[in-house]
């Protein structure tokens, strides 16, 4: 069943490459729904671990989030591709888009690569998969071949590839530590027999992995590619990059961190996570305060949220971090979809030029609700996970870090409120063009409902899954 989850999207992707427009679209949604159903089956009947792949609860959680997001995005993307006229923008004379089947094919390969990351058991295999996600998503970013998107894709490719190359070096260090102790390089086996490994090698490996996977996850100061890539890519791609890909990088990083914590480096690992987590929140807050481009605002909010997740790990609550990761994915994907609707309606990415957003009632509602959710207002799930993380910070004796953290969340609140409220104010902006279509509203609304549900009530099975995932990733639960 695991191999089916890996092969189905990849094969569908390859098939899309050689098929026509209509067939490719059918393949996209078909494979997305099939993948989601498969995730459900894997949850219901968890398979035994193989020698390369496994499906523990951490894998399953991130696999399910990825599958859910991809299914929502696949429907959104169909609508998106519909709206592209033959000449979509002013540059179209010079810069044509990629052919549509190629775009769909890379989307499906992207899903396959992310599934690959989630289900990897072998540390080197996980690296291979994570690098593959970079390679197949770079062409997605510059789907519209504008100068801006080319620059964004180049930055993304270069920074993430160099980062991941360093993580590969880290892998070699783990390999030599494991080789010396005669332990196979499987995440769970390494974690359980970490005491046998040479801690110096592991420490080096962790630093390198943190640099590499942390860059991919968007932690400051290696985050510089993120606002560009997420800001410039087509909205469904931004939603996937932000909601699904960052989680995959987080999962990979946690797999390495779990091994190091097991080897008695827990304190060092936590300090690194806490420091760079808070640094990411601070830097993101600084850039969000006067951000005029609403897609970049969302991108910086992703940096902030990755910082919150890392800070959660640093404070010792992997439970809170995983919960935050789930909630962030749902809400951020919803917001990026809504931002795509706004972009289509107002034809600008500047929040100052958008006014009277209530003229698009559904999008406006999603936009406002999404921001309330992402800022951590009570009925939504992020409120719960942020609270868990802040509580853990004070409980673990990081009082000053906690205070700074809360202050920075307030700064973010101010920055976001400033630009988002302005978008609703009546102004001289041109009224939005076109009407709102169901295909652009429903997927986002469904994700929003999920985020609301996790805030109102965390069902027993989800709670148990997050707890056991946290244990699998070296947490205290």
């Amino acid at each position, binding site marked *: 069943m695991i191999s089916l989850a890996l092969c189905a999207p990849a094969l569908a992707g390859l098939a899309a490459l050689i098929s026509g427009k209509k067939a490719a679209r059918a393949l996209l949604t078909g494979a997305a729904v099939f993948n989601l159903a498969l995730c459900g089956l894997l949850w219901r009947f968890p398979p035994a671990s193989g020698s*390369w792949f496994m499906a523990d609860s951490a894998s399953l959680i991130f696999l399910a989030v990825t599958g859910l997001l991809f299914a929502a995005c696949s429907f959104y993307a169909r609508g998106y591709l519909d709206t592209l006229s033959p000449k979509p923008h002013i540059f179209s004379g*010079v*810069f044509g888009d990629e052919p549509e089947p190629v775009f769909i094919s890379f989307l499906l390969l992207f899903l396959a690569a992310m599934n690959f990351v989630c289900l990897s058991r*072998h540390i*080197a*295999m996980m*690296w*291979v998969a994570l*690098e*593959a996600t*970079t*390679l197949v998503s*770079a*062409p997605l970013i*510059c789907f519209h*071949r504008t*100068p*801006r998107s*080319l*620059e*964004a*894709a*180049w*930055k993304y*490719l*270069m920074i993430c*590839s*160099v980062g991941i*190359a360093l993580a*590969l*070096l880290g892998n*070699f260090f783990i*390999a*030599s530590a*494991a*080789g010396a102790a005669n332990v196979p*390089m499987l995440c769970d086996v390494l974690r359980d027999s970490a005491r046998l490994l040479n801690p110096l090698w592991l420490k080096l490996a962790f630093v390198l992995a943190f640099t590499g996977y942390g860059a991919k996850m968007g932690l400051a100061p290696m985050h510089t590619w993120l*606002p*560009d890539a997420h*800001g*410039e890519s087509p909205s469904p791609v931004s939603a996937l990059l932000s909601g699904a890909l960052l989680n995959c990088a987080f999962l990979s990083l946690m797999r390495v961190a779990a091994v190091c914590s097991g080897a008695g480096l827990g304190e060092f690992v936590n300090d690194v996570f806490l420091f760079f987590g808070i640094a990411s929140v601070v830097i993101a807050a600084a*850039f969000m305060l006067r*951000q*005029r*481009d609403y897609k*970049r605002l969302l991108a910086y909010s992703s940096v902030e949220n990755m910082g919150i997740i890392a800070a959660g790990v640093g404070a010792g609550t992997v439970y809170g971090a995983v919960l935050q990761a789930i909630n962030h994915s749902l809400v951020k994907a919803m917001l990026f979809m809504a931002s795509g609707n706004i972009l289509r309606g107002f034809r600008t*990415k*500047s929040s*100052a030029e958008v006014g009277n957003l209530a003229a698009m009632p559904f999008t406006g509602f999603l936009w406002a609700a999404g921001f309330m959710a992402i800022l951590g207002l009570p009925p939504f799930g992020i409120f719960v996970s942020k609270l868990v993380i802040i509580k853990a910070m004070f409980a673990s004796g990081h009082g000053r870090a906690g205070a700074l953290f809360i202050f920075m969340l307030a700064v973010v609140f101010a920055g976001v409120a400033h630009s988002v409220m302005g978008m609703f104010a009546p102004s001289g902006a041109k009224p939005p063009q076109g009407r709102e279509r169901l295909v652009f509203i429903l997927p986002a609304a469904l994700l929003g409902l999920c985020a609301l549900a996790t805030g109102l009530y965390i069902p027993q099975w989800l709670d148990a899954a997050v707890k056991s995932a946290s244990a699998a990733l070296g947490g205290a639960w």
Partner: protein
Amino acid sequence: MDFLIVSLMLSSVALCATGRIRSLVRIAVFQGLILGLLAVSRQFTAQTAALALATVAVKAVIFPYILMRAVEKAGAVLEPRPYVGYNPSIAVCMAMLGISAWIARKFSPQAPLAAAGAFFTMFAGLFVIISRRTAFSQVIGYLALEGGIYSFGLSLSGDTPAAVELGLLLDLFAAVFIMGIMVYRISDEFDHADMEKISFLKDSGDYD
């Protein structure tokens, strides 16, 4: 084997010391050949031979071909005004050489020369990525970085299973391939590949 590693190191020095794009590409070809030879120098089996062949094919044939076409398209001959000049670059090289030798002695006492060569090549690659402006040089720097890591892996152990090694190589090849295509696109659309001039994306001032 020692001879190969020394040539790898010398070519990395050359990488830092030249600004002619054609020479850079030639050095990349040379390093690709050396890595291919390194792969078969420890043991010659069907598997290592295939790996070596693939390395040479991608790094010394396909990639330089794409890159040279991009270079010709952009009409680039020289790296314009690097952030660090060539004489200081050589000084940095010497410092990096010392550091790699120190690291190698500390961490890999059983094969210090191989490890030093690998680390030095990595550092040289990273340095080129940071200190040069054009996408061409940056790609070649990445190639060197990745080659250094690869040769470090070779010097370490043959513990990694074949399937993983294959996946690893496949990824690196794909990375180089996609980068080559991107550079081609960039030079196609901008008529140059100076990444400093290509900077629409920043956070200051008004949105254009």
